[in-house]
């Protein structure tokens, strides 16, 4: 399989701080990969570089063979990358359905004068968009909750709406930033299954950041470990789990990671 995303020597600095340091990386199309690393290692910053929130000072980011490091966020989205956020960032006062419709924005083709006139093309497109949004809602098991305000939804549901919103833009690559943060064990397990199904059914490539080792180890085909902005290890879950560098910098005794239990 071909690499869908490649980065070469990406460096992002904040003043004197090097948040991402000469980071090269690639993921294969259709895979599920993870990035882990201590707090402040630069994981979220790396996501921000890919999605165009930040422009890296150095290095190149190539997506589906095109360079994207200088693009604006909305252009990156149009090319097929979307993301979710470490702390959920839904449009709180819009309904779940409206959130998903906004996610679809980049796929809608009509121009505003058509909306003003209200021609057939516009009406058809709106109808289709609505239908598709309902479909997505169903896909994330939230059928019937479309008219709820996003902020009134339970936390787990909000996560799923966020993912549905991300999917609405028909991405090829989905970036998830700590999708299970603040979830309890059972909820995390459900979400893990959901992500795996998503990849299996629609072939979307998934890259996630996660601190919950049960999720990471259970789902990832490849794990990359960041520390102080640079890569300290990369490989299959088993390799990472036993890598002394990773244990020292990140995993620790393993008591908190739940690995003990899953092993038991």
């Amino acid at each position, binding site marked *: 399989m071909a690499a869908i995303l490649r980065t070469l020597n990406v460096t992002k600095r904040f003043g004197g*701080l090097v948040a991402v340091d000469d980071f090269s990386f690639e993921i294969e199309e259709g895979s599920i990969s993870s990035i882990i690393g*201590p707090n402040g290692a630069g994981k979220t910053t790396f996501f921000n570089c890919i999605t165009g929130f930040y422009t890296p000072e150095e290095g190149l980011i190539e997506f589906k063979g095109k360079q994207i490091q200088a693009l604006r966020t909305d252009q990156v989205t149009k090319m097929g990358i979307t993301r979710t956020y*470490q702390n959920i960032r839904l449009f709180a006062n819009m309904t779940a359905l409206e959130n998903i419709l906004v996610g679809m924005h980049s796929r809608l083709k009509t121009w505003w004068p058509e909306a003003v006139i209200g021609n057939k093309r516009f009406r058809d497109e709106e109808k289709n968009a609505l239908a598709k949004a309902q479909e997505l809602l169903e896909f994330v098991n939230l059928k019937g909750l479309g008219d709820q305000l996003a902020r009134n939804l*339970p936390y787990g549901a909000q996560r799923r709406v966020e993912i549905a919103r991300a999917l609405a833009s028909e991405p090829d690559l989905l970036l998830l930033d700590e999708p299970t*943060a603040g979830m309890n*064990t*059972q909820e*995390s397990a459900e979400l893990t299954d959901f992500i795996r199904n998503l990849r299996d059914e629609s072939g979307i490539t998934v890259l996630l950041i996660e601190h919950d080792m049960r999720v990471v180890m259970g789902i990832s085909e490849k794990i990359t470990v960041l520390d102080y902005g640079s890569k300290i290890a990369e490989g299959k879950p088993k390799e990472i789990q036993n890598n002394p560098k990773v244990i020292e910098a990140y*995993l620790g005794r393993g*008591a908190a990671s739940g690995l003990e239990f899953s092993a038991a």
Partner: protein
Amino acid sequence: MAMLEVKNIHTYYGNIHALKGVSLHVDQGEIVTLIGANGAGKTTTLRTISGLLKPRQGTIFLNGDDLTKYPDHEIVYQGIAMVPEGRGVFSRLTVLENIELGAYSRSDRGEIEANTQRVFQMFPRLEERAKQVAGTLSGGEQQMLATGRALMANPKILLMDEPSMGLAPILVEGVFDTIVEINKEGTTILLVEQNALMALQVADRGYVIQTGEIVLNDTAENLRRNPEVQSAYLGIN
């Protein structure tokens, strides 16, 4: 008599009835944990105890003194300090200033100085970064700061809201080590955790809260063995 006694509190967010008669108690020297799913009302319980929210009904006693009659900012003077959810450090202030603010409720200069030293001893990392602006600390360091800051109030009881959230596994271990240490030094702790596994390892007793109601109440040991708790909160089936 229990040190902290929460009796039948009902708390609302506007029309949302978040706590539906929560009662719990914490004894001197204990670590008590409160576990539950998202939105169960754990944070709301702590906020109500610390005075940030006023219950519409119910009472909270600390050593026999009713806390609900005090405005939010006077609760800390009664001996309750809180490590808020999401750390809540003052990100534009320096580490040292954050720590000094922790002692805002006190005026015994000498004692404060000693206390600061104790916090620095417990978290040497903070002393290294004393002049740094708190917002630029890493997540784990911020958690240390929030804890250290709360200790500066010299509380009789410390409320901790998800101190391990979003931390790397190695830091999570550190946080729980600290909790045990603080407790050993004589501070009573009410701990809210999503990471029930760890919480029940360090706690003496625990409560399980579900949609605003306490549904279980037992020793930590028993809770860990409880099959319902295991499947719902510990990921064991």
